[in-house]
């Protein structure tokens, strides 16, 4: 915006008809599919009269279980989008040799690799772990709900509208072409004058706010709402990793907020934080964003390690080996994770001492991580290992994670990193960990806790098949990238000169096809399981037969209030301990249960936020001002509502529990 340009329309800003890609057949077709899918979903909801239940039981819910499930559904939908981006890149790179330009122009290719990274980190991995944490934590600590049920709902909807904003950019305007961390000067106004980076910045800003709100909620929940008897050293390891993760969220997300806010100011107001003139310094952004960025990767990996620490003892029928060392390993990873960020830019030129320090710290993390791997192995040792689907994922994870960890240690050596920086080795390394640990863990978690959420298990055949294809596909897709990277291939390259490299990209494309089959198997698994749900049903609530922690002590799915009576923990494996003592479920004496009331404020504020951010992206100042004002008013209005909870009457609790007693007796 220079001073001599004509004043912008206050309502439409810089949004004109040119922003709609009506000349791009692929996008028009995609848009048509999205509209048709949306219409058919809306039609189905109307036909089956589901609008009211959807609004009442899901959209406005403050039930942590339902919010957790909504997070996971959001993540799985976005996984399909992010995965489509991955396949498009793989095809492009396999084709673009021997003078061929491939099929994607640079303008598209650059948007696709940026969108792929942003979607996979912010709208797949993050909602997956937040969803699993939301569902599992209160059940594991024996709580009825979370500390801030309304904020939990708001956090989810902010994440969801941020995901919508990213998808809007597909059809209105463009997305960022500056990579998933959006480093200036490329993301500055001079190099990226379009709306792409603005979409990116606001999507991150909103989802970051949502994650921070959710993080504060879960952190307070773990600290304040544990069942009596559950001291910190009696918390399940998944809760420990979650505690550390949410502390990391609260401590690191402010730095994301600052980096993207200052970049927004640079672009919107013309400040000079990260510009290349008038004293600005792009490296300031790079440092700030990685102060958040590295903890962020541990935010994603720690819950994964927590999930395996729950799966292995249950499916090996043995107490977790080395509980205390597991806790200390988790805490060390959390603390050291804050002093390694510079390994993302050893080539900045900080000098040998600084690089040496950060390299050493990075390599150090391998030690607590190694402790964890040994603990799982020793838990399996002499255990009765049941190769159920979650365990298949776990074993696959151990191999891929070992490899990914080792390649990470290689990259942590500054001298070597000068060679590997910006090469495909890096891409192979972080996919090795992101797929081999985070995705595998979340697939294991979904399989492991699905019976808890819905009362029936997932089909084991299709589950295993999915695990095999994901694992095989991963190796076929990413091992070639290690090789091409060592030979000097840079990341984010659209066309190649050296024909001898093509074979590796063709193999990698085949790998992505195998992973695609893995994704399909997972979808088929869900479908088949829903169809065969009566055969797969579990009425005991202890679906794996030897659950160890409190979530397995209640029914599946758990009642709204989770536990009819607040449980008391005497051991890390509280439920296993209760079973050892011959604990029997109380059949009478139920009390009324105090629960939070649903609220529609979360979705209203989030939709206003969506309108506000869209308006800012397109410089629609009037719309932005009005939606911002409404956002503030609705939020303040919510604080005048003092009637936020109610009691589930004792006889209703008695009815629900009586029904469970009947089902248990029926099963024998």
């Amino acid at each position, binding site marked *: 915006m220079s001073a001599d340009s004509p004043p912008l329309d206050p309502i439409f800003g810089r949004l004109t008809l040119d922003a709609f890609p009506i000349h791009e057949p692929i996008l028009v077709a995609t848009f048509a599919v999205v509209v048709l899918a949306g219409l058919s979903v809306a039609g189905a909801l109307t036909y089956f009269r589901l609008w009211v239940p959807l609004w009442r039981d899901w959209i406005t819910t403050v039930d942590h279980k339902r919010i957790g499930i909504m997070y996971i559904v959001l993540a799985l939908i976005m996984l399909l989008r992010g995965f489509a981006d991955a396949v498009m890149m793989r095809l492009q790179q396999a084709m673009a040799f021997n003078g061929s330009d491939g099929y994607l122009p640079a303008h598209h290719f650059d948007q696709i690799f940026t969108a792929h990274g942003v979607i996979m980190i912010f709208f797949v991995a993050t909602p997956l772990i937040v969803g699993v944490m939301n569902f599992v934590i209160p059940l594991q600590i024996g709580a009825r709900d979370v*500390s*801030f049920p309304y904020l939990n709902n708001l956090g989810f909807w902010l994440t969801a509208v941020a995901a919508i904003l990213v998808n809007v950019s597909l059809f209105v305007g463009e997305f960022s072409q500056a990579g998933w961390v959006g480093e200036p000067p490329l993301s500055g106004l001079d190099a990226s004058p379009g709306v792409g980076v603005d979409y990116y910045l606001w999507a991150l800003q909103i989802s970051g706010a949502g994650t*921070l709100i959710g993080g*504060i*909620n879960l*952190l*307070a*929940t773990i*600290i*304040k*709402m544990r069942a*009596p*008897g559950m*001291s910190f050293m009696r918390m399940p390891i998944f809760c420990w990793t979650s505690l550390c993760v949410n502390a990391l969220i*609260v*401590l690191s*997300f*402010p*730095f994301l*907020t*600052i*980096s993207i806010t*200052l970049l927004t*100011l640079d672009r919107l*107001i*013309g*400040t*000079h*934080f990260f510009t290349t*003139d*008038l*004293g*600005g*310094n792009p490296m*300031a952004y790079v440092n*700030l964003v990685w*102060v958040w960025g590295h903890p962020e990767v541990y935010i994603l990996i720690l819950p994964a390690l927590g999930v395996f620490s729950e799966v292995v003892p249950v499916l090996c029928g043995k107490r977790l080996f080395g509980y205390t060392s597991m806790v200390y390993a988790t805490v060390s990873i959390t603390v050291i994770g804050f002093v390694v960020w510079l390994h993302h830019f050893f080539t900045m030129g900080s000098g040998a001492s600084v690089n040496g320090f950060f390299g050493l710290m990075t390599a150090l993390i391998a030690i607590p991580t190694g402790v964890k791997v040994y603990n799982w192995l020793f838990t399996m040792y002499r255990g009765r290992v049941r190769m159920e689907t979650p365990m298949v994922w776990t074993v696959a994870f151990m191999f891929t994670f070992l490899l990914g960890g080792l390649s990470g240690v290689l990259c942590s050596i500054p001298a070597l990193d000068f060679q590997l920086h910006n090469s495909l080795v890096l891409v192979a390394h972080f996919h090795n960990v992101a797929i081999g640990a985070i995705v595998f863990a979340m697939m294991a978690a979904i399989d492991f806790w699905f019976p808890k959420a819905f009362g029936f298990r997932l089909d084991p055949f299709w589950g295993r098949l999915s695990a095999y294809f994901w694992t095989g596909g991963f190796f076929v897709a990413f091992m070639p990238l290690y090789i091409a990277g060592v030979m000097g291939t840079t990341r984010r390259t659209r066309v190649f000169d050296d024909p001898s490299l093509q074979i590796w990209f063709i193999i990698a494309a085949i790998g992505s096809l195998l992973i695609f089959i893995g994704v399909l198997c997972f979808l088929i698994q869900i479908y088949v399981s829903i169809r065969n749900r009566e055969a797969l049903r579990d009425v005991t609530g202890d679906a794996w037969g030897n659950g160890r922690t409190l979530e397995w002590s209640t029914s599946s799915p758990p009642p709204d209030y989770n*536990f009819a*009576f*607040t*449980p*008391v923990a*005497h051991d890390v494996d509280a439920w296993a301990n*209760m079973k050892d*003592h011959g*604990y029997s479920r*109380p059949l009478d*004496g139920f*009390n*009324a*249960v*105090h629960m939070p009331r649903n609220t529609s404020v979360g979705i209203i504020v989030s939709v206003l936020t969506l309108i506000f951010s869209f308006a800012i992206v397109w410089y629609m100042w009037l719309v932005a001002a009005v939606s911002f004002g409404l956002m503030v008013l609705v939020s*303040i209005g919510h*604080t*005048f509502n*003092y009637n936020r*909870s109610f009691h589930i009457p004792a006889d209703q609790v008695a009815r629900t529990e009586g029904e469970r007693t009947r089902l248990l007796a029926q099963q024998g």
Partner: protein
Amino acid sequence: MTTTTTMTGVKDGTGAPVFHLTEEHDHDGGSTVIGFWMFLMSDVLLFAGLFAIYAWLGGHYAGGPSPSDLFRLPLVAANTAIMLLSSFTCGLGMLETGKGQAGAALKWFGVTALLGICFLYNQVTEYEHLQQAGATYQTSAFLSSFITLIITHSIHVIVGVVWVGVLALQVFQHGLIEANRRRVLCFSMFWNFLDITWVCVFVFVYLMGVLK
């Protein structure tokens, strides 16, 4: 059945372990203060990041004005005094809240908000002074980082002033019920945090800027 609860275990009268509680405890709002404290910690880090950026870029004048050309210490010192005084009146409001004196508490919080408005008025004057001296937001990295720091602080003060208004209405409606006492406590934490942040701005930005 009488039960005793400790963090090491729950026993009934006979000493056998108890695996569930038979009574209900409402926990409404028990996490509010710790949750708000966590939010404040993340806000501390937000300011820490802004200070770090200022420490990095604050010396980049790009040929434009420098702190010794712009900073008027008497006004800033007066503003610091106003901020400190407002923390004091906020504390008096807390004392009255503790005694259950809603009217007196509201008076002190009103004074706190008025001092906040005085502070904001001075900030606006200061900003106009910068504009007249040709020191705009876009002049240099020094001014970008400096102005962002003080505007972020001012936005927090605006939030605090609006918060007092909302709180006054709510205390007026419901009196000093437990929920409102929690809110008052959160507000006082917030206001004291603003005060501390401003002292940091005064020392690290203004005093050290002029000394340089």
